[in-house]
């Protein structure tokens, strides 16, 4: 279980998150949706502490960490929590100087000190899972965006994280390429991978997410099962936002 309690995040005078609480059950997929600047990316990055919350607490499984304004958490505590997570970025962020399989091996070899052979075996199994085993020795620069993102998903999964965090995983991809990423994430969801994703992609959210959290202005406006929230949102603000997403979907990307 992941529990974010009363998370506040300030950048100088700007308060990006105003006391957000979200709970994600094991094996469930939660989508964070909302307008740009609404705080969904920041909230996601507060889970693996790429951003340190100003106050509040983060709990992943048995590990918990509380934050106070002005207090800096110890590196060991950050690592303890971060070790429970894997992250997929909007722009993939593969290590360009390492081949696909080396990217997946990197965390196992460097951080977990696995022997290279064992790490390669696991990396190949993961590449197989995301349909990229045939490109194991390719440089990231030679792969398409969708292929890079699939390798990035394998890299994030390599250390067997308790939760997979996805920050706009399809936003940099055209509909066709994002389709292959949605498919991989869908398979993982079906296997019971716990995921939290920030996304604008209605196809991704509606197809994979069990729960949806709608964030605007740094606050949770509405939360609920995805089918209900997408079809019968309760709050007026949510209705307006969902309406724009659906419109976009009908005009441009297929839903």
């Amino acid at each position, binding site marked *: 279980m992941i529990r974010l309690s009363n998370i506040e995040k300030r950048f100088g005078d700007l308060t990006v998150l105003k006391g957000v609480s979200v709970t994600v059950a094991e094996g469930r997929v939660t989508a964070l949706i909302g307008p740009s600047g609404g705080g969904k990316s920041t909230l996601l990055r507060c889970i693996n502490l*790429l951003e340190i919350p100003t106050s509040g607490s983060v709990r992943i499984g048995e590990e918990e960490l509380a934050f106070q304004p002005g207090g800096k958490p110890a590196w060991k505590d950050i690592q303890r929590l971060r070790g429970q997570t894997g992250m997929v970025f909007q722009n993939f962020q593969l290590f*360009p100087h390492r081949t696909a399989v080396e990217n997946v091996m990197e965390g196992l070899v460097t951080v977990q000190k696995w022997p290279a052979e064992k790490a390669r075996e696991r990396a190949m199994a993961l590449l197989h899972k995301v349909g990229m085993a045939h490109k194991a020795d390719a440089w990231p620069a030679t792969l398409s965006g969708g292929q890079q993102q699939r390798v990035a998903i394998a890299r994030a999964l*390599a250390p067997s994280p308790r939760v997979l965090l996805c920050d706009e995983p399809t936003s940099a991809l055209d509909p066709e390429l994002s389709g292959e990423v949605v498919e991989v994430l869908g398979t993982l969801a079906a296997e019971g991978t716990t995921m939290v994703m920030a996304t604008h992609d209605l196809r991704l959210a509606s197809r994979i997410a069990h729960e949806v959290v709608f964030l605007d202005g740094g606050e949770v406006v509405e939360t609920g099962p995805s089918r209900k929230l997408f079809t019968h949102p309760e709050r007026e603000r949510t209705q307006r936002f969902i309406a724009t997403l659906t419109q976009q979907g009908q005009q441009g990307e297929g839903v």
Partner: protein
Amino acid sequence: MLHWLTLMADSLPSLLWAALVFTVPLTLASFALGLTVGLVAAVVRLFGPAPLAAIVRFYVWIIRGTPLLVQLFLIFYGLPSAGIVLDAFPAALIGFTLNVGAYTSEIIRAVIGSVPKGQWEAAYSIGMSWSQAMRRTILPQAARVAVPPLSNTFISLVKDTSLAAAITVPELFQAAQRIVATSYEPLILYVEAALIYLALSSVLSALQVRLERRLGQYGGFLEAKS
């Protein structure tokens, strides 16, 4: 004409010897040490505490802002007045190291900064520590970008070591001067010395090309046409 060629051939061994025993070791040692100083200085300026970063900035300001020849004179002829007496070779080594350190620190600072922030985040997201991220993710990418500007510094250094002649280091240029003093053939001897410097820096240029290719084999760079 024949006289010139004989003179060149006769002086070649002593010039090469001076290059081999003084110019090359001085260049290699001060580049290696200077690069280390530069790396530390760059890391301090990017990640260190503000007072330390200010000290590094002051160091770079002084070294870049004063002539190398004056620095060498200060170290070799000036410091004895303060009770610090150095032999010529160590004095030159210190002078060149400080110089290389200042210039390369700016190069290294720039290339580390040129690696996208997302690469740090990707490294952190798989559990790497700062030093693991630096060593495994950031520096290898920064290295490829650093090769051309660092080669500039390296090649300048080979030629700048001729300034050590002025503080009595018997390197290549001083060897040429000494032969000129007895043969009265400055044109021939200085052309010959220049050709040896050219040969040395040509080796470095060739190494630069190979190193760029090797460090950039993962692609995504615009390659030079030749």
